[in-house]
């Protein structure tokens, strides 16, 4: 049970941080500044181009020495990993909003920032929800990699219990069912949310 909570905690916290950082890099990519574009492109290229487990170990060996717990190493590793994908999700959804929406806001005297916040982003978030839900599910399952830096989340608990009792298959099966149930519950939640905010869509 403690493993389950830790898994959820790692996932939720890392996706939340990932969303904030991802949104930031999405703005970098959309900005007119060549430097910001470049920073975002390099960041996304590096994160997407290297395996998650390598990133987690990088954080582990880099940060653990500074006295940062393996929980935070795993969470931060996952958060940055997620942020690169979330940045692309946001960039795509913001770009998919018709240019006329921003123009309409501006023609009413709104600043670009205000029109972005009040007009474009709410619509972009709505469009981003399905891929974000997908990314959350990937993040949930990826959190099992935290086991490799001895975070006692779900997967780690299962393998430890398995080797202690020599019933590896049983525990693997149990942990698989745990993940499956979590993902199904979450999918249900996202679907509900999508329906709820579908209200005024075209």
């Amino acid at each position, binding site marked *: 049970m403690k493993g389950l909570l830790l898994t959820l905690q790692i996932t939720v916290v890392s996706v939340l941080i990932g969303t904030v950082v991802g949104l930031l890099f999405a703005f970098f990519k959309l900005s007119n500044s060549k430097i910001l574009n470049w920073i975002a492109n390099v960041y996304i290229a590096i994160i997407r181009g290297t395996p998650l487990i390598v990133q987690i170990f990088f954080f582990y060996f880099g940060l653990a020495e500074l006295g940062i717990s393996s929980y935070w190493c795993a969470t931060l590793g996952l958060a940055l990993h997620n942020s690169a994908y979330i940045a692309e999700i946001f960039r795509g959804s913001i770009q998919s909003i018709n240019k*006329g929406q921003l123009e*309409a*806001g501006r023609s*009413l005297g*709104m600043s670009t920032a205000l029109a972005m916040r009040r007009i474009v982003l709410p619509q972009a978030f709505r469009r981003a929800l399905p891929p974000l839900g997908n990314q959350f599910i990937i993040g949930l399952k990826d959190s099992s990699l935290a086991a490799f830096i001895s975070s006692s989340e779900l997967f780690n608990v299962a393998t430890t219990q398995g080797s202690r009792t020599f019933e590896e298959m049983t525990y693997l099966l149990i942990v698989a069912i745990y993940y499956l149930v979590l993902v199904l519950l979450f999918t249900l939640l996202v679907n509900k949310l999508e329906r709820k905010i579908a209200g005024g869509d075209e």
Partner: protein
Amino acid sequence: MEQRKVMINVNNLNKSFGELHVLKDVNLEVHEQDVVVLIGASGSGKSTLLRCLNYLEYKESGTITIDGKVIEPDQTDLNKVRQEVGMVFQHFNLFPHKTVLENVIEAPVMVKKIPKEEAIEEGRALLKKVGLADKEHVYPSKLSGGQKQRVAIARSLAMKPKIMLFDEPTSALDPELVGEVLSTMKDLAREGMTMLVVTHEMGFAREAADTVVYMHDGKIVEKGTPSDIFSQPKHQRTKDFLGTIL
């Protein structure tokens, strides 16, 4: 009549998109309470001229004066200018995630910081004026094109602009819905709103316009009263154009 003040003055305006020279030394003067209708073939620069006036497009050279103030993007607060120059778009551009009333009160509340109750009251009055009082809680996707455009007009009016720009407001509408939008615009003209309208609705131009301006290839070819332009155009190009559409 000539005592009325000049609301819009455009002097030697030029604008290009890359290689394409869209506006060539355009000069135009619009007086307070005037209704000016811009006509011309697609690509003649009518819409670009309109979009330059509230700086959705930046001019290249020339001067634009709105209500006595010269507008230069690096010296003027464009957001302020745009509050006074309303714009209605061909494709409505209503905010789909907001109800009709929310669309109308968004800018007064967020930009002008008018108390919400007050904005709602004014918003309701505007919706009543455009004949959509019963739709305030409806989302735009549930409206017909004509209703959407009337909401868009109400949304613009909510900022109490001094000038209204209409960029082909009926071009995206089914023919049977054009009338309701045009009659809303005529009401507005009657109330003395200064209006600049790009349209292909010659009936509207004839009935509501004080001045009709014919544009061709980025230049103003001819301007005059509707009866002058439609009955005795001076330029061959104007004749040709009117010949193709009337």
